[in-house]
């Protein structure tokens, strides 16, 4: 087992190198960071050149990539433009945990991301819990009543949920629960932000503001999970050990929830494990609609201003999370399901 984990980790490293290379090449043309720096326009050509030099943008791509990867504190760079490298670098490189500083506010990238990460995590983990619980409930129900009218209705509704663009469900739920409820004099839900500035950032405020985003995210992701549970549940219910449990006279409830569900829910570990890192990136569109100050919005804001270190930082963290979670998922799955053995 430990050999298998080691092997997977070793495979992950070149993959991440490769991803970083692709992304870095893409970064070369997403815009000119100097042109939008700090919201001011740099008009003089000399200033422009100087800024590019200071940001290291005058270097060829492969040198920029090398500096990003391993830092430049081992070499000297030319800052005054006289052709002689005289200033020693200060960057330590991604490999030593330095993702650089944001071009906008000179704060370290990890700090900028760190400020937003918890906001995304609470939104996404809450959604994931709602999704899993709801999917277990609906999946089991429709599996036990396969092809009943209710099962067919659920299947149709799930299809609609699955096809629903997130912005449409978000806008509709905002319209219903905020605009119309307000108009009808009912208690209404807040639509944007994380808390009411007047009330302050209290737990209740955050929870109250989470209701609509969590509902929207859950509705669209819920369908795939439920379908999955339904099919694994149907498969498990046909197994011999379920027949044995029935034959020895166990109660139906016990058979369903203890014997069947435990085994049917197991494969969902894979789905959750592969979905979780994507949640880290946040639902970019959802956060935009609900003005939720998370990673997705951070990404959009910094893409607009061509803040390359922050964009690269977010993308690499998400990619790393995907790779790590894939390995973790395999390990956890093998641990939960003793039939699976990873040799080699």
């Amino acid at each position, binding site marked *: 087992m430990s050999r298998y984990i080691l092997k997977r980790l070793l495979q992950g490293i070149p993959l991440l190198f490769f991803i970083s290379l692709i*992304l870095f090449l893409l970064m070369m043309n997403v815009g000119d960071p100097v042109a939008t720096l700090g919201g001011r326009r740099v008009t003089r050509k000399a200033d422009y050149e100087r800024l590019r030099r200071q940001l290291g943008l005058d270097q060829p791509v492969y040198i920029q990539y090398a500096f990003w990867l391993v830092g430049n504190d081992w070499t000297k760079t030319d800052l005054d433009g006289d052709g002689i490298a005289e200033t020693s670098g200060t960057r330590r490189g991604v490999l030593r945990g330095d993702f650089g500083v944001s071009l906008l506010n000179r704060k370290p990238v990890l700090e900028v991301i760190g400020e937003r990460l918890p906001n995304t995590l609470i939104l996404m983990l809450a959604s994931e819990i709602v999704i899993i619980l709801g999917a277990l409930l609906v999946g089991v129900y429709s599996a036990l009543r396969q092809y009943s009218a209710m099962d067919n209705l659920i299947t149709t509704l799930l299809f609609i949920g699955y096809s629903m663009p997130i912005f449409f469900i978000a806008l509709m739920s905002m319209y219903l629960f905020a605009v119309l409820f307000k108009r009808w004099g009912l208690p209404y839900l807040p639509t944007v932000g994380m808390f009411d500035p007047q009330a302050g950032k209290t737990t209740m405020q955050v929870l109250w503001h989470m209701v609509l985003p969590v509902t929207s995210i859950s509705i669209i992701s819920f369908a795939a999970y439920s379908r999955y549970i339904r099919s694994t549940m149907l498969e498990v219910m046909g197994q011999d050990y379920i027949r044995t449990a029935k034959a020895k006279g166990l109660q139906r409830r016990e058979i369903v929830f203890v014997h069947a569900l435990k085994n049917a829910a197991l494969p969902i570990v894979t789905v959750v494990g592969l979905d979780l890192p994507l949640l880290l990136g946040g639902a970019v569109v959802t956060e935009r609609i609900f003005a939720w100050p998370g990673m997705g919005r951070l990404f959009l804001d910094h893409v607009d201003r061509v803040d390359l270190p922050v964009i690269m930082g977010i993308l690499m963290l998400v990619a790393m999370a995907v790779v790590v979670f894939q390995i973790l998922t395999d390990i956890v799955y093998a641990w939960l399901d003793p039939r699976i053995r990873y040799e080699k």
Partner: protein
Amino acid sequence: METTRQASHVATLLPDELDTPPFSLGQLVWRRFRRHKMAMFGAVVMILLFVYSFGGSLVFPESYANFADTSLRLSLPSAQHPFGTDTIGRDVMARTIYGGQISLFIGMLAVLIECIIGITVGALAGYYGGFVDSILMRITEAMLNIPEIFLLIVMAKFFGGEIPEIDLFGRTFSGSVVVIVLIIGLTSWMYLARIVRAQFLSVKENDFILAARATGTSTREIIFRHILPNSIAPIIVSATLGIANAILAEAYISFLGLGVQPPTATWGNMLDGANNYLESAPWLWFFPGLLILMTVLSINFLGDGLRDALDPHSRAV
């Protein structure tokens, strides 16, 4: 007596004595598809959506869709403007008609690019294996490890910038349409490549491929005439569902303001800024949103029906 009757019974089952010839593959698929109620529903809705977007242009000229009557800004749906008017007084219904053309067009063209890249990568990796396979699959895996929406945003920026307008069929389109088609194609081929690769890996082990090779058939012919047609079912299903994903991707990226630029309308960019009119003008976002939902839903139904109908293991007739 008993035996002769049985014998004659068997005899009537011989193929050359059947009243009707056995079904061809196409007939079989059609019969199974027709029985799939949801898929038929999807097909009908899809046809209606095409009639709406393309037939609608016979009723409203394009100049009407782009005509801004500033005295009628944000007016409620009425007999004259069934879907209301937008922020600068354009008719929303006419814009959903022309927007639908572009959205459907982007969906289909992006899938064409997706198929070209995906099938090429998958076929090369699956057929040649070894070094080619590991390089191509590493690229595929690397692309899959970055969530699609991030890739779309970065690529939209990468290929964005100043793009000249295009004149086609006497109409002017924003050049960003081409960019969007390209980036959606470039960010969506990975799953298809994996499917095609898996198909190639299994089909190429068959004896008829060995026979083709033994008779000196060229590699190109083996790939395109022998293996590809035998792998076509999952490709068709995946491409059909791909149209829904492409239309959604266009909507997401346009919603973020990075997609097709006005005045060319798409269902996606009609939603850009709809947030600000959540309360005051819900018709701005409701109709384009509903059309996107109907399109995606009917394509998903269609894809599901095709998957069942094309399944070679299915015995249903």
